[in-house]
């Protein structure tokens, strides 16, 4: 990849990460203050001796909570993803496979012109791999035991090169933040639904007290608030899948360019896709970070709009076809095509 192209990719990912954080904070503020508004409108006309919701403490709490959460995700997001997967850090390699992994990671770090990332091993028999971290200086790569056992050197090189390009492009920052924040939205949504049962009773009593239908503005606010609360987990996970889908082709192509051997990665992907067991140790929320979908979702391989929407990775057939196309071009012209041309 040319320097300008790489720079544009990095900047775009940093920008998207900032937008993601802003959107996340705004969403929490809306859920909090929107809830306050609905409660305020709902209790405004009730008799003076009943509860009046004047201080927007839900909004203040939710926004403060979101800010703290963003801060910790920024600082410890990568660690949390690794811990959730039960990964252990490879410091002194014992077995030949671990040694080979360390060597291959060092090789690809030189090829990408990056510092060597920290290496982690996930105790899972299903072959998979992911990278995480804030930037290339604080990056981690993790592979499963199944991957180490099944791939040969060329294939391992392809997989590590793919992860290394995620690191170099700053994909890892966006993906790690997404994993942490999408998880938080799901949690918030659950918590709020619990809270609603209680809140609903309060609202019902106050309306009943007046013997008339509720304030129409309050009802509209409440409806919009409810809808956004119900849709938020779905929208945020669709968002993380969409972001991931786009990044995978580019990482494949850049990885192939780093190793100068598209077939190595293609063979690795074939092996990874052929394993049907899901990667159980990797949580749903981190699925978009992996090199192949750990859930092996049936949707992913289905063509068409829905299959596209609900998959965190592009169809394997397309990824393989593009890599083979690169190999063919390399054979014919003697040089690998620019990743930007292949993925564009």
């Amino acid at each position, binding site marked *: 990849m040319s320097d300008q192209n790489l720079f544009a990719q990095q900047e775009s990912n940093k920008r998207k990460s900032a937008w993601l954080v802003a959107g996340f904070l705004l969403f929490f503020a809306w859920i909090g203050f929107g809830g306050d508004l609905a409660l305020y409108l709902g209790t405004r006309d009730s008799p003076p001796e009943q509860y009046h919701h004047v201080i927007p403490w839900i909004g203040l709490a939710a926004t403060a909570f979101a800010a703290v959460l963003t801060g910790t995700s920024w600082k410890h997001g990568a660690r949390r993803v690794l811990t959730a997967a039960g990964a252990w850090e490879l410091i002194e390699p014992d077995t030949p496979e671990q040694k080979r992994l360390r*060597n291959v990671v060092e*090789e690809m770090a030189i090829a990408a012109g990056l510092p060597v990332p920290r290496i982690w091993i996930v105790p899972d028999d299903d072959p998979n791999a992911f990278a995480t971290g804030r930037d290339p200086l604080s990056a981690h790569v993790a592979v499963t035991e199944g991957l180490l056992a099944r791939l040969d*050197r060329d294939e391992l090189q392809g997989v590590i090169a793919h992860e290394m390009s995620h690191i170099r492009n700053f994909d890892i920052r966006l993906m790690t933040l997404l994993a942490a924040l999408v998880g938080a939205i799901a949690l918030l949504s659950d918590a709020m639904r619990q809270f609603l049962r209680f809140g609903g009773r309060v609202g019902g009593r106050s309306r009943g007290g007046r013997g008339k239908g509720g304030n129409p503005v309050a009802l509209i606010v409440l409806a919009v608030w409810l809808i956004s609360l119900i849709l938020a987990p779905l929208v945020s996970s669709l968002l993380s899948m969409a972001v991931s889908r786009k990044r995978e082709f580019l990482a494949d192509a850049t990885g192939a360019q780093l190793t100068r051997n598209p077939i190595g990665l293609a063979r690795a992907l074939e092996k990874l896709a052929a394993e049907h067991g899901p990667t159980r140790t990797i949580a749903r929320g981190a699925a978009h970070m992996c090199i192949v979908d750990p859930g092996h979702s049936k949707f992913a391989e289905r063509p068409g709009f829905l299959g596209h929407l609900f998959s965190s990775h592009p169809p394997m057939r397309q990824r393989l076809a593009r890599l083979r196309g690169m190999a063919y071009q390399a054979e014919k012209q003697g040089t690998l095509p620019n990743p930007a041309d292949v993925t564009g």
Partner: protein
Amino acid sequence: MGFVLLAILAAIVLWVIAAYNSLIALKNQVVNAWKQIDVQLKRRHDLIPNLVNTVKGAMEFERSTLEAVISARNRAVSATGVAATAKAEGELTQALGRLFALSENYPELKANQNVLQLQEELTSTENKVGFARQLYNDVSTQYNTKQQQFPTSLVAGLAKASPAELWEIEEPGERAVPKVDLSMNKP
């Protein structure tokens, strides 16, 4: 009038400083990239005597191949300059390739953990040399272009810039896919 002249003079001085510094920065990058290669080459040279000692017993009858590896290694160690190093290292790669091809005939070597590990280490250092070489050639080309281009070329003498030698690859086969896999233990 004097003020305008002064401004032009200041602009020229500032430009010379900037051009000089950019050349020095590139020169340091070239030196640094070469160091990366050098580290790997040293490691490779250290690994080879170990390998020869480990396989010597089993490969008694391949004495000439082993000696070829040792002498290629010694020539590579004493080589200086980019072109000579490139040539000597290329020959060493070929000698090693022959050794590993022959070792296929010795089943006891293929099962020997020590040999396998040395092979893995050698494969890795060769790959690292390959990737570091690409980086070195990239920054060297940038450096060379910069010192030849007008107007930076005017400052080149001041910065003591001289063209950096590229690491050329002689074998056409190696040019296309400059990666080596010596490992026999493909699963």
